[in-house]
């Protein structure tokens, strides 16, 4: 099981690369969402040149027509580098095929793509790995893991909402107040406005350190976004050394099913 990091700070990249981890996820500026920091193509080239670790580039925004020129240029550049590309939008599959880029694609659709059949659909179209949702149970993840190579977020705040709108700015504008460079919360859920819209994250930080041995996944993803630096460094060390403990960490839906019919929740 490989361990890879979503790097939360583009000033300290070397510190993370020095850890005994297998790779990093680098969100691409302008074309990714849900990250504390983003990297330019030039940054990514530089990082690729100074490490042998696996480099994954996250390009996970819903693409608009106006993004396509930049997207195509970036994909062509990335196709000449030894990287995996994590994607949300199906435009990336189409461009990859149309231009014959041969990109190593990982589907990363947050809350969709949550059955074995759906994963097989993408696998049959050359997508050899899925970044699986945290909204499903361990049994479901393990079944899907039998048919597809999986990445999974095992540590970090989970993205649970993304709007194209600037929700905090809109509200503050309605109140005739200015938005500051601040952290905002609703009911202890972090709400972050960024270039492409507004994200909300889970109230609690997921931590599956005590469960990863029972997960049928290939990549353990540790996401340092919005985590204190020292704390995240400790977490990385714990995962690297498989240092389990007896604490009751937040596990999302790993052991809990959602419900969807009135009779299920009445």
């Amino acid at each position, binding site marked *: 099981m490989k361990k890879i990091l979503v790097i939360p700070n583009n000033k300290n990249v070397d510190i993370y690369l020095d850890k005994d981890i297998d790779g990093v996820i680098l969100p691409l500026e302008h074309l990714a969402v849900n990250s504390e920091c983003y990297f330019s193509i030039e940054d990514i080239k530089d990082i690729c040149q100074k490490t042998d670790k696996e480099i994954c580039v996250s390009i996970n925004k*819903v*693409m*608009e*027509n*106006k*993004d*396509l020129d930049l997207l195509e240029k970036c994909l062509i550049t990335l196709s000449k580098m030894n990287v995996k590309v994590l994607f949300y*939008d*199906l*435009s*990336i*599959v*189409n461009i990859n*095929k*149309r231009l014959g880029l041969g990109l190593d694609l990982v589907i990363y*659709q*947050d*809350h*969709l*793509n949550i*059955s*074995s*059949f*759906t994963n*097989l*659909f*993408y696998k049959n179209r050359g997508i050899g790995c899925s970044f699986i949702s945290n*909204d499903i149970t361990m049994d*479901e993840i393990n079944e899907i893991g039998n048919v597809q190579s999986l990445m999974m977020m095992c540590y970090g705040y989970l993205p*649970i*909402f*993304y*709007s*194209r*709108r*600037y*929700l905090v700015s*809109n*509200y*503050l*504008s*309605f*109140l005739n107040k200015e938005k*500051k460079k*601040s*952290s*905002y*919360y*609703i*009911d202890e859920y972090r*709400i972050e406005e960024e270039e492409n819209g507004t994200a*909300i994250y*889970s109230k609690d930080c997921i931590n599956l350190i005590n469960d990863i041995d029972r997960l049928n996944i290939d990549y353990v993803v540790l996401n340092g976004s919005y985590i204190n630096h020292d704390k995240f460094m400790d977490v990385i060390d714990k995962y690297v050394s498989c240092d389990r403990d007896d604490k009751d960490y937040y596990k999302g*839906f790993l052991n*809990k099913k*959602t*419900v*969807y*019919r009135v009779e299920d*929740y009445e």
Partner: protein
Amino acid sequence: MNKIELLAPAGNLEKLKIACLYGADAIYIAGTKYGLRANAKNFTEDDLKNAIEYAHSLNKRVYVTVNIAFHNEDIDGLVDYLKFLESIRVNAIIVSDLLIIDIMKDNDIHIPIHISTQLSISNKEAAMFLKNEGVERVVLARECDRDSIKNIIDETGLEIECFLHGAMCSAISGRCVLSNYFTNRDANRGACAQICRWNFDLYEDGKKVEGNVPFTMSTKDLSLITCLEDMIRIGITSLKVEGRMRSNYYIATVISTYREAIDLYYDGKLTQDKIEYFSKILNRVANRESTSQFYDHFPHEDGQYFVGRQENSNQDYLGIVLSYDRDTHMVTIEQRNYFMSGDRVEMFGPHIDTFSFTVPDIYDEDGNLLEVARHPKQVIKFKLDYEVYPNDIMRVNFLE
């Protein structure tokens, strides 16, 4: 020239009939499984058969939503269900989970596929991917603007469906599981608890932001009556009205209004005065403010709804016609909201031009003179010189 399709929602068979009568070209519905309104009444298999027979007898099309994000446990029964839908000749299924493409191929099932807005298709490359998978139509993301929609139509040749009217998700469709995390109700399997319409305190650096209204993500409703002509001109195939859980009155009002507007456009008679009149009707029926959202501008504060949950129940719907006696000119209606003799009201329906009149003396079923019609579902009779038909609707006066 093909006329643009007016696509109506229906949460049950009665609503489907209302939508058909009031001018929808096509109706989208859900069976009891696999739809994103798990707690609407929805359609049993018998209802689905009856709905399709009824709609097809009027040359209307029926699309069935199969648009949940499937979990493994949802797959059992899916093939049989798709075969059933094929056997009753649904015109298309609306899908968000692409596993259905392979399941249909593997099982030799042939039903046209429309891609749900849950996949948030917002660009021509993603649309082309789906076209190459054999998809017939894409329902574009609500966040698409006019130029993007036109470009996707021009570049892909796909049938493109766009939202025309109704409630909006605040999030990009498919990218919201607030409901799962706040209430354990699965948003992508039809149990969304609409957390985006809740009120919250917003905290800035740990301190509550003080204001006269609480924070909410809630958006105003969508209404594109003012953009309708442009939407037709750029080549959209289908215009979708949201609201499978809305009332019969809402469906009748919204569908009949857009029906008239579309027909007037093709007749070259859609004037600014008419658009303003239609806007007035549409604005009243939902009791929430509406805007054009992303179609003609990027929505900022103007696209959101910060006044809290203060919608009043709609009392415009006064009654529905049960029968009309041509000999005596007596109309029989079933009451829906309070009205009385002397009120100015109007009547609209699929077979009549909307007209205003003053309510004359009113009587109960036994012929007793009444002062007011105050009881819901009370049967009321009165004399009316204009012929009306069953399912015509009496409402408050908009014309004058």
